[in-house]
Structure formats: structure tokens, C-alpha cells
């Protein structure tokens, strides 16, 4: 299953907000990962899309601003 889906032209993570392993895998393979400021880190994987400054939270998941 792909980790990403297109919604209205935006690239949205298909795992929602609780797919921690998938978010870590995606970030480990991403050239653009950059850790967000400390107050916005949400999981204990050092490298995770959930902790990336280029994720934009949506109601159900997040949009990747680099894909």
C-alpha cells in the first residue's frame, strides 16, 4: 500500500496520525526531512514525517509540502 494519496492536488499521508512506523520509514527515505522546532515534535522517532517541519497537519492526517 502506498503511503501517500493525492487529495485536491495535495500529497497527503495515507496513514493518518497514528501510523508511526510508516511515518518513520517514509522520513528515513526522504531527502527533505528536517526536524521541526522542539515544541512541535510529536513522536519519539528522531526521524519521522510526524516530526518534520515540512508536514502540514490536516484534520485527519498531514500534507507533505515537499512531495
Amino acid at each position, binding site marked *: 500500500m502506498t503511503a501517500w494519496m493525492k487529495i485536491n492536488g495535495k500529497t497527503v499521508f495515507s496513514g493518518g*496520525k*497514528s501510523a508511526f512506523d510508516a511515518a518513520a520509514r517514509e522520513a528515513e527515505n526522504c531527502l527533505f526531512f528536517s526536524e521541526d522546532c522542539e515544541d512541535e*515534535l*510529536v513522536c519519539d522517532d528522531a526521524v519521522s514525517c510526524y516530526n518534520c517541519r*515540512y508536514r*502540514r497537519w*490536516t484534520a485527519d492526517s498531514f500534507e507533505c509540502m515537499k512531495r
Partner: protein
Amino acid sequence: MKLFVCIDDTDNYDSIGTGELLENMMGEAAIKDLAKSGFTVRYQLYIHEDIPYTSHNSSMCCTVETTDLDAFTGFCESYLEEYSAEGSDPGLCILPDDENLDYSSLIAFGKRAQNEVLTKQDAYKAAENFSGEIHLSEHGGTGGGIIGALAGAALRAGKEEGRIKGKLQPLPNKPEWTLSEFASVYGVARFADEEGNKITENLSIRFVHPTKLLYSKGQVTAVIVNENGCYMPKPKIKKNKEKNQ
């Protein structure tokens, strides 16, 4: 005089965050002898695709003491215009911290901003009742940051719950604490369990993971959890939490 100072929408994807900008601004104000600031509280606002936030739509509010309101306000305005990130929509709100003021209409606005999409007009309308008391200003872009700035200041004035910026690090070679010791060293006024119930017993705790403090019930609060029979400050982040904002 005492104030609440809140800014919002000052960043872009490659800049420092709004919380860091606020702390830098307050540091500069202190150097210039314009103000002394207290801790910063982060308020989560509504996440919705119609709201043009950068990544998480939160606003940051701190308390300030100043003797020269006009000079301090002018300084904040100039600072935001100089240091806000390109493409951002900065807003500034400065609200008196005065127990004689009735903040209820502003607090209602702040709570709305946590649950619905609001406009600048909504913000200006909410501020109308505080004409002459409140400072609300736009500093570039669309100026839409005034919505979050007003909401953050209002929520802080209402003692609404938010996360305190920064984290506490365990001390080397000191894992064991009592709550009274912890309160004394870290300035914690209140302890609560994860459901928000106040803890009054002087529990022995183990502090080995970074933790974040809350501003809750108007007090600096540490959340204490019981993991496998061991009490500890709630670890800063938990991988298995269901909601992660």
C-alpha cells in the same frame, strides 16, 4: 503594568518558529530594558484547510511587565516587521493582564478559534469591546495572524489550558524525587494525573525522561503518570498516543 503578548503567523517552512521568535523578541526587549517576560504558552488552534497556517496552527503567548507601554508596543511592532519570515502574515496582540477586566467575550472568541474558521473581521469585532485597552496589529502579508494572536492572548487571559514552551530535562545522577522537591526546583505549582485530577499526596517519582509542563487552571502544572507501578512526570512525547497535536 502587566500584559499578555501574543503573536502568530510569523514563520514559513524554513524560518524559526513563532515561539522562538517571541522568545527572541522578549529577550531583546529585556536587553533594551523595556520589559520582563514570563513563560510562553502554546495554544492549539483549529486545523482546517481553509486556514492558511504554516504547519500546525498554534499561537504563542507570554506574560510581560513593562513600565512604558507605548515604547514596548512600538518595539514589538518594529521587531515583527523586521524579523517575521518572508511570506508570513504576522499579527500582534497586546492585552492588559488586569483582574478587573471581564475577558469573557474574548475568551469566547479564543475558544471559537480552536473549533472553527474565523476571519480578521471576526477578530476586530471581538476586540471592539476592549477599545483603548487592547492592541491588535497586522505586520505584513494578509495580516491574518491577528486572529491567532487575539485568540492566544484571550485564552491565556482566561487561564485556558495550553502547553508551556520548552521542556524539562532530567538531572544527571538524580532520578528519584518527591513532588515537593520537584515543585521547588522546577517552579511547578500543581500536579495532576492524566485526567486532570489534582494530586495532593507528596508522591515519590522517578524523573528520567524529558517532560513538558502545562499551564492549567492558571498554574504551572506537571502531569504525573503511573507506568508499571512507578510514578513519573509524563514523558514529553509518546509514540502510541492517538492524537498527536
